């Protein structure tokens, strides 16, 4: 197993800016906050950072989806690096991490600053409508196949997949709601979460439908904020202040048609082969996992990952989450322990990596999972995109 490059890397520091529904500073300033916190957390200085990575790279379109790229951050921090890379054509949100692992293996760098910045809360208050479509403008590229059909948001494309999942699995709304309700319970114990007021299954069932079967509480919340992690070469990691959180295995398989319409299995999206790849690169098994930070752009992603990681059987998630005890902080598999993106804000799985490390380093305060958790499964998802990482604290 030692031949896999990720085994020679570890997360050595994490940082998180203020996360809010309207920031009092610029997106770049938030990014600097997260980056400096991560660098200091690792016990490093700016001079030690010799690589930078992000996903999906700078998009100067006013949407706030990714307003800061490598170039802006590199210059703001005056970093001198051996390698950097940012861009959206990667296997999902963790593409930046996978690229960093490759760059470390290639000898291009030793300590990579990886970040994800979003400024969607401010963008939606000002310049940008909450819509993928631009009035009067013809749509080119893969999204053109959806554009004429009032497909205003990824929520609609995802709802197509989730509705088929509901149809095939027989999951009931009060079971689906356990994800949103349970994560809100965790968020109440997380000072940095966006929404902390408790919600009940009754609240969930009464909440507005977005597009069947999605309700508002199934959707993550757009925010202003930035998360950063430092991925270091293992020999460097062993000299730093935190116990290394080893990247034990990654799954970046894209052995599917790269399409939002022609994916072979619509109800599981691209997750199964990504999970299969991750488990093929480790001796650990699903039963070894202590906690899970499962992608929750929509709650159904989390439900899908429970099955596709093998924590339960195909279409068995409805029973696994029924009543919510198994996925609670004191359950057999605590899931999205900080409230996730549903209650903590959309940082596209980088908030989840921050929470994973916070738990594995025993820093989670009132929401700390008991029993000294050591192994965490994390994931991303979205149509043909998906990624997975198994993190293990030494």
């Amino acid at each position, binding site marked *: 197993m030692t031949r896999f490059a990720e085994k020679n890397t570890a997360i050595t520091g994490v940082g998180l800016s203020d996360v809010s529904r309207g920031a009092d500073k610029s997106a770049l300033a938030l990014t600097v906050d997260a980056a400096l916190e991560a660098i200091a957390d690792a016990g490093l200085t700016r001079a030690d950072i010799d690589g930078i990575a992000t996903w999906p790279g700078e998009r100067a379109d006013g949407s706030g989806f990714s307003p800061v790229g490598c170039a802006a951050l590199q210059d703001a921090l005056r970093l001198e690096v051996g390698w950097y890379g940012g861009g959206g054509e990667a296997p999902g949100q963790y593409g930046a991490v996978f690229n960093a692992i490759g760059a470390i293996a290639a000898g291009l760098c030793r300590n990579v600053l990886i970040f994800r910045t979003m400024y969607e809360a401010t963008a939606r208050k000002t310049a940008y*409508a*909450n*819509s993928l*479509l*631009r*009035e009067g*403008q*013809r*749509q*080119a590229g*893969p999204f*053109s*196949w*959806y*554009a*004429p*059909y*009032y*497909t*205003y*948001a990824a*929520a*609609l494309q995802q*709802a*197509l*997949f*989730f*509705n*088929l999942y509901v*149809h095939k699995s027989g999951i009931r709304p009060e079971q689906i709601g356990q994800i949103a309700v349970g994560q809100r319970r965790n968020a109440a114990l997380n000072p940095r979460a966006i929404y902390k007021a408790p919600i009940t299954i009754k609240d969930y069932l009464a909440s*507005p*439908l*977005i*597009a*069947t*079967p*999605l309700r508002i509480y199934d959707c993550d919340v757009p925010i202003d904020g930035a998360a950063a992690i430092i991925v270091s070469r293992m020999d460097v990691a062993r000299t730093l202040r935190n116990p290394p959180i080893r990247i034990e295995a990654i799954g970046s398989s894209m052995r599917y048609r790269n*399409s939002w*319409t*022609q994916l*072979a299995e*619509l109800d599981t999206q691209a997750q199964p082969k990504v999970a299969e790849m991750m488990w093929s690169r480790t001796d650990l098994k699903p039963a070894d996992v202590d906690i899970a930070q499962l992608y929750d752009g929509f709650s159904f992603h989390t439900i899908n990952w429970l099955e596709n990681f093998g924590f339960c059987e195909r279409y068995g998630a409805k029973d696994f989450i029924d009543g919510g005890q198994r996925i609670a902080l004191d359950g057999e598999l605590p899931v999205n322990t900080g409230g996730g993106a549903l209650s903590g804000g959309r940082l596209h799985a980088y908030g989840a990596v921050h929470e994973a490390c916070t738990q594995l380093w025993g820093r989670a305060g009132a929401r700390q999972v008991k029993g000294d958790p050591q192994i965490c499964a994390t994931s991303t998802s979205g149509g043909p995109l998906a990624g997975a990482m198994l993190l293990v604290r030494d």
Partner: protein
Amino acid sequence: MIARTLPAIDRDNEAYWTWGREGKLAIHRCASCEYFVHPPVPFCPRCESRDVAPQAVSGRGRVVTFTINHKPWVPDLVDPYVLALVAIAEQDDVRLACNIVECAPEAVDFDMEVEVVFEQAEDLWIPLFRPVTA
């Protein structure tokens, strides 16, 4: 409903968005092995032939999956509508994004038999699907 956002036309997708003028649904097909290639590419991934061109299909299909939208993403988007993926009758792995029309959203179901209708928008004819009536 408000105006549809229209696709940008190129050599590969032109037939799909314009043959509706003649009431035809155009799907690219390999002349050598008869495989339908969608989205349209002038290359057959099954037999590697370059002899792939648009061909009119029956316009029949089935609803693979669908969602009923309730959120007014933009002003004036008031009524619920159905976004769906329809598999063409000729080849089940060719899936077309579309709206299901001429029926109540609640009447749409998985595996429902549908047929194409076209709606003109500027110089294009947008394929939509409606339930097949007996």
